[in-house]
C-alpha cells in the first residue's frame, strides 16, 4: 500500500454511470455498523428506499423517472454528506463536536455532542439525522470513511461501486477529472459540477445527464460559504459588548448626576 498523500480528498459521483444497484448504500451501512431497517416501499418518490437519509442510512440513491426522448428513463442521484470546505454544521455546533479535517472529511465527535441539533438546522443539504428514539441519541451522517482514507483506503462506497460511478482521489485530481469528462462527452453530461463551488466548495462532486433539481438534489444554493452569514454578526460581539457596556455605563452616570443634583437642589430649598 502506498503512503497516502496528505492533500485534501474528494469524490466524484458520476450519475451517468450509476445503475441504481445500491451497493454503496449496503457497503456504507456495513462499514458503519448500522442495523437493517423495516421500510415501506413507495412511501416517497417512486422506488427510492428508504425515502430519505436517516440515522441508519448515511447515503441514499434517489430514483427518478426522467423523460428525455420519447420515453421516460431512469436517472439516479445520490444523497450523502458533501463534506463542505466551510461546513455550516461545524460552524453552528456550540461544542465543536463537528470539525473539518485536513484530509477533507467533516467528522463527528460524539463525546462532545449535547444534542442541540443546530447542525441539522444549519446544513443546506439537509444531511445530519437524529435517532430520537434512542436514550443516548446522536447525530448520524456520512463520515467519508475518515478512518479508511487515513490509512490509504478508499471509502466503502467507492470501493464497491461496480460501474466506477464513484471515483476517489485528491480533490485537485477529481476536479480536473470531472471537467475532463464533461469536456470530452458534452452530450452525456450537463455542463455543471454540483459541489464544485456551491457553498464555497465541497468534497463530493456530482455529475449528471439531466438538471440536478430533477433528480432530487437541492439547488439554488449560494456560491459563498454559509457560515459567512453568521460570521459577520458574531465577529462584532466583543466590540458590541464593550460599546454597549460603555454607553450604558455613561448613561447611568449621567442620570445619577442629574438626580443627585436635583436632590441637593431640593435639600437646599428645604433647609
Amino acid at each position, binding site marked *: 500500500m502506498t503512503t497516502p498523500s496528505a492533500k485534501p480528498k474528494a469524490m466524484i459521483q458520476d450519475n451517468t454511470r450509476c445503475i441504481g444497484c445500491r451497493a454503496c448504500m449496503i457497503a456504507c451501512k456495513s462499514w458503519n455498523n448500522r442495523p437493517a431497517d423495516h421500510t415501506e416501499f413507495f412511501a*416517497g418518490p417512486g422506488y427510492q428506499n428508504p*425515502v*430519505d*437519509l*436517516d440515522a441508519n442510512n448515511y447515503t441514499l440513491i434517489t430514483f427518478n423517472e426522467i423523460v428525455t426522448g420519447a420515453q421516460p428513463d431512469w436517472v439516479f442521484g445520490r444523497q450523502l454528506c458533501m463534506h463542505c470546505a466551510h461546513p*455550516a454544521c461545524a*460552524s*453552528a*455546533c*456550540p*461544542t*465543536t463536536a463537528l470539525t473539518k479535517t485536513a484530509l477533507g472529511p467533516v467528522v463527528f465527535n460524539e463525546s*462532545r*455532542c*449535547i*444534542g*442541540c*441539533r*443546530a447542525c*441539522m*438546522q*444549519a446544513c*443546506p443539504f*439537509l444531511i445530519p*439525522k*437524529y435517532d*430520537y*428514539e*434512542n*436514550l*443516548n*441519541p*446522536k447525530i448520524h451522517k456520512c463520515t467519508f470513511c475518515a478512518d479508511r482514507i487515513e490509512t490509504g483506503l478508499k471509502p466503502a462506497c467507492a470501493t464497491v461501486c461496480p460501474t466506477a460511478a464513484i471515483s476517489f482521489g485528491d480533490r485537485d485530481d477529481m476536479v480536473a477529472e470531472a471537467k475532463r469528462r464533461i469536456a470530452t462527452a458534452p452530450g452525456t453530461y450537463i455542463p455543471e459540477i454540483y459541489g464544485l463551488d456551491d457553498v464555497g466548495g465541497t468534497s463530493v462532486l456530482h455529475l449528471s445527464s439531466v438538471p440536478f433539481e430533477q433528480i432530487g438534489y*437541492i439547488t*439554488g*444554493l449560494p456560491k459563498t460559504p*454559509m*457560515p459567512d*452569514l*453568521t*460570521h459577520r*454578526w*458574531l465577529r462584532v*460581539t466583543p466590540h*458590541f*459588548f464593550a460599546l*454597549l*457596556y460603555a454607553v*450604558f*455605563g455613561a*448613561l*447611568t452616570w449621567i*442620570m*445619577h448626576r*442629574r*438626580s*443627585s443634583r436635583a*436632590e441637593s437642589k431640593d435639600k437646599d430649598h428645604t433647609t
Partner: protein
Amino acid sequence: MNWRVRLTRWDLILLAITAVGVVLAVVRYAGGIGSVANINNAYPWGWWVGFGIMTMIALGGVGFTITLLVEILGRHRYHVLLRPAVLMGLLCYASAIVMLMVELGRPWKVWMILVSWAPSAALYEVGWCAFLYLNVLVLEFAQVPLEELGWGRALKVLRVIYIPIMLLGVTLSHLHQSSLGTLLTLIPHKINALWWSDQLPLIFLFSAMMAGPALAILEHLVAARWLGFPPNMDMLAGLARIEAWLVGLLLVFRIGDLVVRGAVDAALSGTSFAASFWVEIGFGLLLPLVLLMMPEVRESRAGLATACSLVVAGVLLHRLNVAVFGLRVRHWETYVPSLGEIGISLGIAAGAAFVFGVLVRILPIHEELPPTSSAPESRAAAPAAAAWHGARGVS
C-alpha cells in the same frame, strides 16, 4: 417575611398543570425524545424550541428592558415595576433552561458548552450569555430575600456590585437576544422569505425589547387584581405611550425589511405562510399599535390588558413562525406539536407562574416605595440602587 401563604385555586390549578408536565418529562427521560415529541428529521426544532426556549427568552427580556428604563435611563417613575420585572426575567430564563434540559438530546452534557471554544456558533454565544445572565438575575433579585432575612453583610456586598452587574446584565441581554436571531440567519434557503432576513438579529432584539414593557404592564394589572392593590394607572399610561413607540418602530422595521428584501409578493400570495404572517403582523403589531395610540385605551385596565396581551402573543407567534412554521421542507414532511410537547412546556410555564405567585406573596415585590428617592443613610450607595431599597429601609 411572611412564610404563611394560603394556596388559592389558581395555585392548585398551576400545580396540577406542573404535575402533568413533570409526569410527561419522566416519560421523555425514560423513553427518549421520540416517545413524547413529534419532532423529526425534517423539523429538528419544534414547539419546545419555538415556545419553550425562544419565546421564554424573548419574554424574559422584561428584566433587562425595565432595568434599562429605570436604572440606566433614570426614569424612576417606573421603579415600582423593577422588582417584578427582574423576578419575571429570572423565572423566564429559568424556565427556558429547564425546557432546554428536556429538549436537548443529551442534557447531561450541556456543560460542554462552557468548556468549548466555538465563537463561530451563535448557540455558543447564546449559551454563555444566558448562563452568565441567569447568574446576574439571581444576584440582582437576591437583594429582596436577603433584605427580608436581614442578612446585612451579604446585602451590602450585593449592593456594592449592583451597578456593574446590572450593566453587565443589560449588555449581555442585548447580545444573546440578538444572537438567537443570528442563529437563524444561517438558513436563508430554509426559512420562508417572509421571516428570513439578514437583519434577524436586530428583529429579535427589538421584538424582545418591545415585549418587555408589555409584559410589565400586564403583570402589574394582574398582580393588582390578585393581590388587591390599586394599579398605578398614571404610570401604566406613561409606559404604554413608550410601548406604542416601540411597537410602531418594530412595525416600520419589519415592513421596511420586507420591502427592501423584495419579499412583498410572498406576503401577497395566497399561501398559509402569508396567512400566518398577516395574523402575526395584524394581531401582534397593527392592532396593539392602534390601541396603544389611543389615550382612552392607555387609561383603561381592559384596554391595556388587551393591547399588551396581543403584543406578547405576537412575539410568541413570530418566534414560532421563524423557527418552526416558516421552515421549507419537502412535501411529504410534516410536523404538528404533540400533546406531550405542549404538556411539558405548559408544565414548566405553570411551575414558573406558581413560583412567581408564591414569591409575590411572601416577599415585598409589589410594595409601593416612598416618594423621595432615598433615605439619608443610603446616600453612600449609588442612587440607582435606591429602587431596590425596601420600604423598611434596611441599609
